[in-house]
């Protein structure tokens, strides 16, 4: 299982990327970091000439790729903050896609949202029954749910979609009967499209910022907006309300919560069901993009969501960062193979920074290692024009892995995460 060890006394980390750059600073520094990253990336863009790095097109793609991962991760957050490890996110997401497809073709997008969330929540309910009531090992139950969900989806399609006059088949649903509305920020990203004008100037920094903003504000689906809002909403719910405190207490010390009258089992049920619902919503998002349920549409995104959750140190902001980073790297590799090479330059610059930092701290070995890798990355950037498709395809995964292993590991999972709680058994 995911056992991340921390010695007592360390402050909880706010996510490896933040840690990597600031050693776990305050939220205030966030803007600085964001700015620094943009300056860096924009520098890389100017040097490499890869407009895709900061184009609004890449950004909206990154957002599109990040949202389902982020929703799955958010689902994981609820469940794991209540102490239930949820490796069944993928399965719940699959159920979500099916539910969305089924409701969507009959009653339109609103019903699809409800249907997907409901189906995902059913998966969550099953997980809760197995882990909370029956005390089954969380990982084991999650794996079983992943297997079961795939079977159930296929089975239901067979049942409802073969010979369905509305269309569809064993691997897909009929098309949704209505599409969700899409919004753009007036004036800036649509109509006069001021940001678009700025972006097209290709000015250093300004065009980059305009590109990023336009990508994040232009032609956005309602579910994207909902998903983005869910991040702060989850934070507020989990950290600013009594409900959230109780929920988290089940993940930290359920016995203590129980002794104070918190209904631990009920809390865990609620959390895991919410978890399933959110993962299901991730599935709905995928259905909205396709306009249809399609078998294997989730394509492992639930697992990536789990990774984003751990990456983000079990925090909403952190997991959003994780999902965002993954989405960006993925968007880049889908957009342009040569842009991925430009990433090497970025890596080189970052590693060079690490090398300098480490030598200041007189950690010679680390400094030399970082320096060597920086040099290697730079050489790669200079020599390679385009990476072969197989290699490019795992850019986001490699990026995630690299950032995780570079960042100092001060991740802290909820203390009772993954432990089966039985009342009266300490």
């Amino acid at each position, binding site marked *: 299982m995911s056992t991340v060890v921390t010695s007592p006394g360390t402050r909880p980390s706010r996510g490896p990327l933040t840690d990597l750059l600031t050693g776990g600073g305050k939220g205030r520094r966030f803007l600085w970091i964001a700015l620094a990253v943009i300056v860096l990336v924009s520098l890389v863009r100017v040097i490499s000439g890869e407009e895709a790095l900061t184009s609004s097109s890449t950004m909206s793609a990154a957002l599109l790729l990040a949202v389902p991962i982020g929703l799955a991760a958010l689902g994981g957050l609820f469940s794991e903050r209540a102490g239930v490890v949820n490796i069944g996110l993928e399965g719940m997401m699959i159920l979500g896609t099916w539910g969305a497809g089924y409701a969507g073709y009959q009653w339109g997008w609103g019903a699809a949202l409800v249907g997907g969330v409901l189906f995902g929540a059913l998966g969550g309910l099953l997980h809760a029954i197995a882990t909370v009531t029956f005390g089954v090992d969380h990982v084991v139950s999650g794996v079983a749910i992943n297997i079961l969900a795939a079977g159930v989806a296929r089975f239901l399609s067979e049942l409802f979609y073969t010979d369905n006059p509305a269309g569809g088949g064993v691997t897909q649903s009929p098309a949704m009967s209505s599409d969700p509305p899409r919004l753009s920020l007036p004036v800036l990203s649509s109509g006069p499209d001021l940001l678009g004008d700025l972006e097209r100037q290709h000015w250093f920094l300004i065009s980059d910022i305009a590109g990023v903003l336009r990508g994040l504000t232009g032609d956005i689906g309602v579910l994207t907006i909902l998903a983005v809002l869910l991040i702060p909403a989850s934070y507020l719910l989990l950290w600013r309300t009594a*409900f959230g*405190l*109780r929920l988290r207490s089940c993940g930290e010390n359920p016995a203590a919560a129980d002794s104070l009258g918190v209904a631990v089992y009920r809390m865990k049920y609620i959390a895991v069901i919410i978890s399933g619902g959110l993962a299901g919503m991730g599935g709905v998002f995928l259905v909205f993009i396709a306009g249809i349920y399609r078998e294997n549409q989730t394509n492992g995104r639930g697992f990536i969501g789990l990774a984003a959750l751990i990456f983000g140190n079990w925090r909403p902001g952190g997991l959003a960062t994780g999902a965002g980073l993954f989405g960006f790297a993925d968007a880049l590799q889908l957009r342009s193979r040569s842009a991925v090479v430009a990433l090497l330059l970025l890596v080189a610059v970052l590693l060079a920074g690490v090398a300098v930092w480490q030598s200041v701290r007189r950690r010679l070995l680390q400094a030399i290692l970082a320096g060597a890798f920086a040099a290697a990355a730079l050489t790669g950037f200079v020599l390679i024009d385009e990476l072969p498709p197989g290699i490019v395809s795992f850019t986001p995964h490699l990026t995630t892995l690299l950032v995780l292993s570079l960042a100092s590991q001060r991740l802290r999972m909820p203390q009772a995460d993954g432990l089966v709680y039985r009342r009266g058994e300490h």
Partner: protein
Amino acid sequence: MAATGGTGDGPPPGARSGDAYAVELRGITKRFPGVVANRDIELRVRRGEVHAIVGENGAGKSTLMKTLYGMHRPDEGKILLDGREVHFKSPADAIEAGIGMVHQHFMLADNFTVLENVVLGSEPTKGVRLDRAEARRRIREISERYSLDLDPDELVENLGVGARQRVEIAKVLYRGATVLILDEPTAVLVPHEVDELFGNLAELTREGLTVMFISHKLDEVRRVADAITVIRRGTTVGTADPRTTTVKELAEMMVGSELPSPETRSSTVRDEPVLVLRGLTVRSREGRALVDDVGLTVRAGEVVGIAGVEGNGQAELVDAIMGLRPLAAGQVQLDGGTTGDGGDVAGLEDITGWSTRARREAGLGFIPEDRHRQGILLDAPLWENRILGHQTLPPAAKGQFIDRKAARADTERIMQEYDVRAPGPDTLAVALSGGNQQKLIVGREMSSSPRLLIAAHPTRGVDVGAQAAIWELLKDARAEGMGILLISADLDELIGLSDTLQVMLRGRLVATLDPATVTPEDLGGYMTGARSAAGAA
């Protein structure tokens, strides 16, 4: 202070005459699978008094209190509060009725702040929001009123034991409890913290609160209690008046026999050192010294006791000696004379860089502080537990293989010799009571005849009978020339067993004392830093 509660002000206003008790338990019976933890218990507690409950390990005290607190329902019997019968379905109901409980094992979420821990379950809210400002205000108020000295925004994991206990008390007071249950509150406290706690309790009873508290320390009980109920094997054997009952009498009521004493017989200390520590330093991740420049020698046949308030580096010191924690500086030397493949190694050997396994092979035995964490595999049978820590040593190991038969046989031997009560070597360890588990551990560690035994709280949580047995075993081993490093929170045990006493404070050894002359009170003084080594000299 030892006088009847509330003497100063006369009977508290809420107290009623006759049979209207603040708490009354009638005929409580509680069964667990295979055990009757409580049988036909009778308990009456007056408003405003400090009522002590004493009894052996496993007598059923905690079970009874958990019943009262709604953590489980009694199979038979009635609970009356102020003369009215109540039925609690959960702790929430009990809290509602004004009962609060501080558990034997702290019930705190380390990763939460004091505030979060305190308000959990009864949060002040403003709309849907958790009203932190209000919570902070109320906690400060309670903290000041009862001198609990708590910072609401501190993370609990940064607190020491005493402070954690005060958080637990604050939790209860925050909920406006009028009946306070404290399950072995003093077990982890040093004398002066105990005094502070009793001060707090006096404060509470003055305000009209009722306190029920459990303790194994009978003199303490006599000091603060207004009434005592004795429980034995799950049932009440009677009540006692603390003013008229002696410790001896109380003990006899509890166990039906005399209190054992850890008194050491004549000195068996020999010349050759078996363990030498030099400048041992362990740092936390942030670089704080947890163990600070510790130098120490344990000789053959000697028991060196380490006294100290929990959290002053004892655990880290033990880990460092066992090789479970990296050293920042210093050296560990061990005399591995009796082990090795035939050839005996003369004198001390530097084992600083050795792995835990190599250390154990070289003759280091280990009775860990937390047996469930480090000493035993609850879900494994006894014979597999026999192998734990001795995987590479006979009789369990045969080359790279495990000799199951020999391990089983040797387990039977240990069970015989050390009076481990269990059906057989295939019983799961979880089925044993704490005391029997501990005896198995002691037996196991003894059977490889280590040169040095680290005994961390060897009798913690075991009842008097098993405690006596373990003390005997340690004394015998010492007589045979084993060096023992004893870490304990039980000052009587430390004084009684040790040949030399070291006091550990904030990671340093601050005083060396002679157990023959030191009193528990003095020792407590050194442990808290109230007295310094200069004063001892």
